[in-house]
């Protein structure tokens, strides 16, 4: 059984209850006060200690179209818990695992802060939680489970959505889905969620709203996403990659080219150095 999220952006009202619930449950520190100027989005991105992020896109109608063509897109972004996860494959310590709910989970006591998962995520989700530093009110180390002296003193560790592993363990719904007042975020068995999502796309189509599922039934190397989305505009408008690629697919070409260069230079070296 795989558990995941279906995030229906047509139901999102941008209340950010998911962001707050996530921060509260997971004891994640605040991001500080920064004015972005980007609609209502001052959270700006997912991060090591920001595991839900509501994106806001205010699309005013072009001057030559009626104002009714204006719309306001809102999407609660989250770790995608990919079928083939770049972070999971990159992790050299085995800290990143796929747990019994088929979700991608970082074991904080095993993560050594090497940072390889960070550029290996095709969605730019996972990030390092910085060193302990309360001086500017933004740096910190604490995700509730790693608040130990050792972690605070040296190096950070990687942080991202756990899909509320602890809540799932006792049969609770993840904090964000629980708090969502419009059921824009639905938690459940991924197969059931997909069926629900496909029905929703059809229903919206009947009403004349073009929508599609992002991360389901798409032919990408990352595979289907356990946390997928219903979108009404192109992925890049929500800062999602239009074409995510699983980084490890590039390894065969890389190893081959490195081996070729090494063999060629070794041969030239042999010719030069032989007596």
């Amino acid at each position, binding site marked *: 059984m795989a558990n995941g999220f279906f995030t229906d952006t047509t139901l999102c009202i941008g209340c950010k209850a998911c962001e707050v619930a996530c921060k509260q449950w997971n004891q994640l520190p605040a991001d500080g006060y920064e004015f972005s100027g980007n609609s209502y989005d001052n959270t*700006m991105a997912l991060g090591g200690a920001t595991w839900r992020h509501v994106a806001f896109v205010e699309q005013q109608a072009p001057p030559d179209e009626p104002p009714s063509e204006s719309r306001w897109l809102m999407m609660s972004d989250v770790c995608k818990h990919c079928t083939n996860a770049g972070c999971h494959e990159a992790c050299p310590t085995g800290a990143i695992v796929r747990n019994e709910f088929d979700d991608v989970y970082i074991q904080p006591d095993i993560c050594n802060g090497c940072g390889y998962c960070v550029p290996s995520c095709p969605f730019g989700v996972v990030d390092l939680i910085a060193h302990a530093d309360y001086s500017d009110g933004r740096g910190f180390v604490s995700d509730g489970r790693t608040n130990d002296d050792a972690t605070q003193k040296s190096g950070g560790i990687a942080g991202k959505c756990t899909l509320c592993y602890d809540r799932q363990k006792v049969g609770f719904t993840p904090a964000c889905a629980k708090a969502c007042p419009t059921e824009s975020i639905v938690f459940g068995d991924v197969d059931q969620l997909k069926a629900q999502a496909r029905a929703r796309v059809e229903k919206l189509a009947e009403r004349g709203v073009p929508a599609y599922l992002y991360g389901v039934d798409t032919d990408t190397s990352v595979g289907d996403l356990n946390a997928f989305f219903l979108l009404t505009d192109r992925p890049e*408008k929500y800062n999602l990659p239009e074409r995510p690629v699983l980084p490890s697919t590039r390894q065969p070409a890389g190893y081959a080219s490195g081996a070729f260069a090494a063999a060629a230079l070794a041969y030239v070296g042999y010719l030069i150095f032989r007596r």
Partner: protein
Amino acid sequence: MKAPELGAISPDASARGVSDGPVLPPHQADTYYERPLLKRPHWEWNVILYLFLGGIMGGSSSLVLLADEHDEGGRVLARNGRYLGVTLALVCPAILVSHLGRPERFLNMLRIVKLKSPMSVGVWGLFAYGNLAALSAAGQLADDGVLPGWIADLVPKALLDPVLAIFGSFIAGYTGVLISATAIPVWAKGKRHIPALSVCSGVASACAAHAALLALEGDFPETAAKLERLELVASLAELAGLEHFRRYAGEIGKPMFDGPRGRKLRTFTQYGGILGATLLNLLPGHSRVKTVAASALTLLGGYVFRETLIEAGKDSADDPRAASRQPE
């Protein structure tokens, strides 16, 4: 009263990706407020230095295998190579620890073997290389009379040298695979170029390091000339590879080849480290000063190449367009 600019309201915002340039009206915008889609890698000087020294370490072991121990220069080269190999095999994990923060954290990587992760494969390669290099150096120490002679008989040199050359070449190249097996556009685009460039740069740097060591130890014109020739081939391959990568990567390669960073790469790696060092080596007559100067240029060029690669990756992560349609 003049309206404050966006950057002035929130100085930190630019650090988190707010563009200073004009932002298109939302119904036309093709990105999310020009905000980065990917996260910047957190790799600093320690990782750069490791890439650089790992390249020298790998190249050095190949030179040990190539060295002709029938003549004096070859013997000195092989000896230097064994000592340099073990020294760097001790220094490299220390540098990685400095990146991780605490020594125990290095051990976390030794709890599993994961072929899918170049970092895991690499750390085991480093582990194997380090132990074998220590064995090889022990044999050399015995040959040099520092350790008792019977130890030399225990060390299977004929087997160790080729094995170390293979492990060494792997270490020189896997870092390139590690970097290009990420979502960072400029690194991903270089999936074929970066590993080969890493090997070439590593071999050229190793030749330069050994040419300098050799020059400081005495006069071995034949061996020095061979090192220079191999360095020339590796450097020219690197030069050609860099130029091909620049053309192939196009827009995606800009963080690496454009602006001040591109100028630095051209100055230190392409002109100084490759063309400059080659010209110095081609000058008639040989002197210690000339050899050491040429080696210094090559080594500096090798370091700047690695630095450029890593730093360009950070800026490349900030480009939401390149990150949206990721290179295959």
